[in-house]
């Protein structure tokens, strides 16, 4: 039938004469395909009534949080561990000419190396952001979200790394700061660091080589631990170091790092210590080293791995 759609639409609007209506009904009964066409058009007709497009771009402009004007200025830094992907950029915020410019570096899927105005080196881990003033005459301060390693140029001016909750102050040293949703970790590789809560600098904790300072937002307290591994620096130097580390600590770090489950079935092993330096670590290499050191067996199980 010619123009059946026109007739169906009129049918749905009750605009057909009884004769025309009969015609459509006869056509529908002729075969299943016809009936299907009728039903589809009925659905489209019904569902398109008052259909409104909700424009998310327009709505976003209305509700997006107000932010200082930002524009992309230039891209720098080089990738030291090219992982999967994409983006690294520097934003230039707060472009008021009279004030000091604030620079923000943000990484997504790449680790980046950055030099600060005082030529201190920063290695910024994935998904991290660092903010600082372009001109730093009498102060050296950065704000960090995520994780970064710092190699601070020696100077009389203190170098301060602030996070949402903590403050880490140094004169010149190598250390890593990692922020997670509810904790801040500071790991010192060289030199001396003062670590405190943001608003309580008098309650500082001094950290030295191989110390980890942990501030938990819930406990509101700084804890100090000595580490025998370099778990906080593996991501940028790509080497996993254990230095007379207790066996169970080794296992817990491996589990975390490679996101696997390990069950220890030999209680004798729990009193052992482990030392190793593994470059470009993967779980196979670590397992090889453990087998060699303890003459143990590592087998794959349903949930993960069993050591015995």
């Amino acid at each position, binding site marked *: 039938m010619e123009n059946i759609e026109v007739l169906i639409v009129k049918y749905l609007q009750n605009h057909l004469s009884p004769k025309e209506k009969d015609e459509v009904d006869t056509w529908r009964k002729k075969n299943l395909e016809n009936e299907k066409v009728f039903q589809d058009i009925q659905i489209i*007709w019904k569902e*398109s009534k008052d*259909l409104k497009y909700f424009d998310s771009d327009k709505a976003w402009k209305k*509700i997006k949080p107000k932010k200082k004007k930002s524009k992309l200025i230039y891209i720098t830094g080089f990738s030291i561990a090219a992982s999967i992907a994409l983006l690294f950029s520097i934003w230039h915020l707060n472009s008021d000419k009279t004030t000091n410019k604030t620079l923000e570096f943000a990484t997504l899927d790449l680790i980046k190396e950055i030099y600060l105005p005082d030529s201190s080196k920063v290695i910024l881990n994935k998904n991290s952001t660092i903010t600082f003033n372009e001109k730093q005459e009498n102060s050296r301060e950065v704000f960090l979200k995520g994780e970064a390693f710092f190699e601070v140029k020696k100077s009389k001016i203190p170098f301060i790394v602030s996070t949402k909750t903590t403050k880490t102050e140094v004169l010149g040293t190598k250390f890593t700061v990692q922020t997670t949703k509810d904790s801040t970790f500071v790991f010192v590789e060289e030199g001396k660091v003062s670590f405190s809560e943001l608003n309580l600098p008098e309650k500082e904790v001094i950290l030295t080589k191989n110390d980890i300072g942990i501030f938990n937002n819930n406990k509101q307290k700084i804890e100090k631990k000595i580490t025998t591994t370099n778990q906080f620096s593996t991501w940028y130097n790509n080497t996993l170091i254990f230095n007379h580390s207790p066996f169970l600590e080794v296992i817990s770090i491996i589990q975390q790092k490679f996101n696997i489950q390990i069950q220890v079935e030999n209680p004798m092993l729990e009193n052992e210590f482990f030392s190793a330096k593994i470059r470009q670590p993967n779980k196979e290499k670590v397992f090889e080293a453990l087998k060699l050191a303890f003459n143990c067996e590592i087998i794959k199980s349903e949930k993960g791995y069993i050591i015995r």
Partner: protein
Amino acid sequence: MQTTESLTSKFLEGDIQAYECIFKMHYSELCLFATKFVSCPDTAEEIVQDLFCKIWEKKKSLHIETSIKSYLYGAVRLNCLKLIRDKKIQSKHIKEIKLNSDTISFEDVMENIELQKKIYDTIQQLPSQRRKIFELSRFENLKYREIAEKLELSPKTIENQMGKALKFIRENLKDYLKILVLLFSLK
């Protein structure tokens, strides 16, 4: 590509880009969802925009136990019902609440929203004159005669254009509609 989980956790940490991404992913569907409760599209938009503003303000104290998507749908539903209960909107703006849990399932509603989106997208592909006619008829409820006057065309032309528009939309969606009917019949 970012996973929804990492997007959600970035959003909770205050990442505006993640917030924007989540907003744009869900906005139009959530508005359509809200119109299942309140018939006024502006009210629907307001409810969804309010919700997004609120979750941004309160991101630090937000507890999302399931996915952000189900959280948003649940919150839109709740806010719509609250609005209706508080009678802040005139009774004429309240749609008969079809979404009674024992008659229509959430899945049905989601399917309906998807179908509406597909229909809308297909309408956008129509030649402009035909699209205009179709939109005046379906979105603004004008009679053929009124559309003909407005566009200085004959009512016969409007009738034909409407037929062609529906034919095109149906051709475009017929495979999808097949699956849809199949799903309905399985239930």
